[in-house]
């Protein structure tokens, strides 16, 4: 029930694990554990977001008592939800891609194609993570906070940065993901 963006699954390139067991395999297992933890964090954040907006509106309309600071908490929860699931999404190759030419691309080229796509994805998110870290540094120096609750912004952007780097790792470890691993 992947609601709208049914991701196009990776084609069955040969599982590279056989060759790359050992260090890569262990690294991948550690990554999987941590990314599952991050998925759980996203689930909790999403449920909190839902509950918070519900209570905020009901409180305001029925009891004239809105929750304070909902807007900035919403922003923080949004960033958490999105960046926390990106590592596992990227690892599994669930990002939307166009597989229109799959029938034309010769079989021997497909693993190379897959590896190239994962590497490019990894570099992209590494750059995003790096720049978010730089940005967080600036926010820390200026003492940037949210307007109402005075929450410091730097740790939030740092968290996004770490998760973006984890996404870059997810793209990397995804190269070693066996084609038939259960979801």
């Amino acid at each position: 029930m992947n609601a709208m963006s049914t991701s196009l699954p990776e084609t069955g390139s040969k599982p590279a694990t056989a060759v790359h067991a050992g260090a890569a395999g262990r690294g991948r297992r550690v990554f999987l554990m941590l990314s599952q933890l991050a998925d759980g964090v996203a689930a909790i954040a999403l449920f909190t977001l839902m509950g918070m907006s519900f209570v905020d509106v009901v409180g305001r309309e029925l009891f004239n008592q809105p929750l304070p600071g909902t807007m900035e908490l919403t922003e923080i929860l949004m960033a958490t939800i999105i960046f926390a699931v990106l590592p596992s999404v990227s690892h599994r190759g669930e990002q939307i891609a166009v597989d229109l030419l799959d029938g034309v691309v010769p079989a021997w080229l497909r693993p190379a194609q897959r590896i190239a796509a994962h590497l490019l994805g990894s570099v992209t998110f590494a750059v995003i993570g790096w720049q978010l870290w730089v940005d967080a540094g600036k926010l820390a120096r200026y003492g940037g906070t949210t307007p109402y609750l005075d929450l410091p912004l730097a740790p939030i952007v740092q968290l996004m940065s770490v998760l973006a780097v984890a996404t870059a790792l997810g793209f990397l470890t995804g190269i070693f993901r066996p084609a038939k691993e259960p979801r």
Partner: protein
Amino acid sequence: MNAAAIGLVALLALVFARVPIAVALAVVGFIGFSMLTDWQPALALAAHTAKEGSLNFGLAVVPLFVLMGNFVTRARLSEGLFNAAYAFLGHRRGGLALTTVAACGGFSAVCGSSLATAATMAKVAMPSMRRYGYDDRLATGSIAAGGTLGILIPPSIMLLIYGIITDTHIGKLFAAGVIPGLIGIALYMAAVSYTTWRDPRQGPPGERSTWPQRLRSLREVWSIAFLFLLVMGGIYGGIFTPTEAAGIGAGLSFLFALSRGVLSWKVLYEILVETARTSAILFAVLIGALMFSEFINYTGVHKGFVEWINQLGVPGWIIILVLVLVYLVIGSVLESLSMILLTVPLFFPIIVDLGYDPVWFGIVVVVAVEVGLITPPIGMNIFVLRSVIPDVSTATIFRGVTPFFFADVIRIVLLALVPAFSMWLPNLLFGS
């Protein structure tokens, strides 16, 4: 102009080489922007767009509406909806197919995704149509086509995305989708009638329901009507913002699913993670598209385009028809979200410069996406149906949707040439 053309070619090359669309957009946007300016501003842009595409209040509307759709889907409201539609339409020729179209339309009023609508309705509609000896073509065609209504009738994830990237009023966009959605239902029903008129064996009529039966069947749909009226009514009445409406909708459908006993901890967790994933996939593409738009805007290519169009001196409606044609072609090969995020940054400034209404253009784009969902070779709704009903071939489904495809072409031309179909309701509700 040149930079934009090179960027576009590079983008298409990457996309067709199977690089994730989000990554392709970000890479081309980043490199293009840094060539036109410098590395430093491009690097700063990377951080800026990553924050703009996530740490953003207005975006919360997306996961919340996706969540609402996922709860509603699990709550099995689809069966009640189908039975109610059947009570009114079942006795006609092709009655179950008409029922399917109507039920899809109803489900679309609480679910903003076409794929989810098609998958959900397939589970209810297909067994019934099989039981009555419906032809697989008509059966699957009506589900695949009916499912596309999910992204037009509000709430709609695609209209949300369009609204977010173009900064267009989401309430107006939602209101603008209602009448084109109803036109869609009417034309799909006409397509069913045409098919059964040509070949009555494809869809034999069912038994007629009595009025007491009909009224009883309506009891099952009050919850959907209530959800829709509360969520949309709240937006139009100015009681809550679209984000708040989405929060209320998600919260209520959670309570609803809870009361129907369909939620275990495991199911709840699955729904939450699935929703988070779907949203993250969307937002990754959105972040990429934001970077790509910055680059395209910097090249100023659309100003050149507008000048060129003005020099050509062709009337506006021809431009629109050409755009619609372009969209139909792109829609047949690209998945819907990518199609919107790839094309809108390019076409939107042109449309606005030519003096057209952004709300109306959003509807035209989303209807074009709907058509793309059922056109070969990449019709996502057909693939979804294949996964739910594996024993029907892709070719059969594509044959089955043909009459619906023509109904869609009629609809999109109507909507493109007569903006009033889209604009009447939003102007009435929000003023023009």
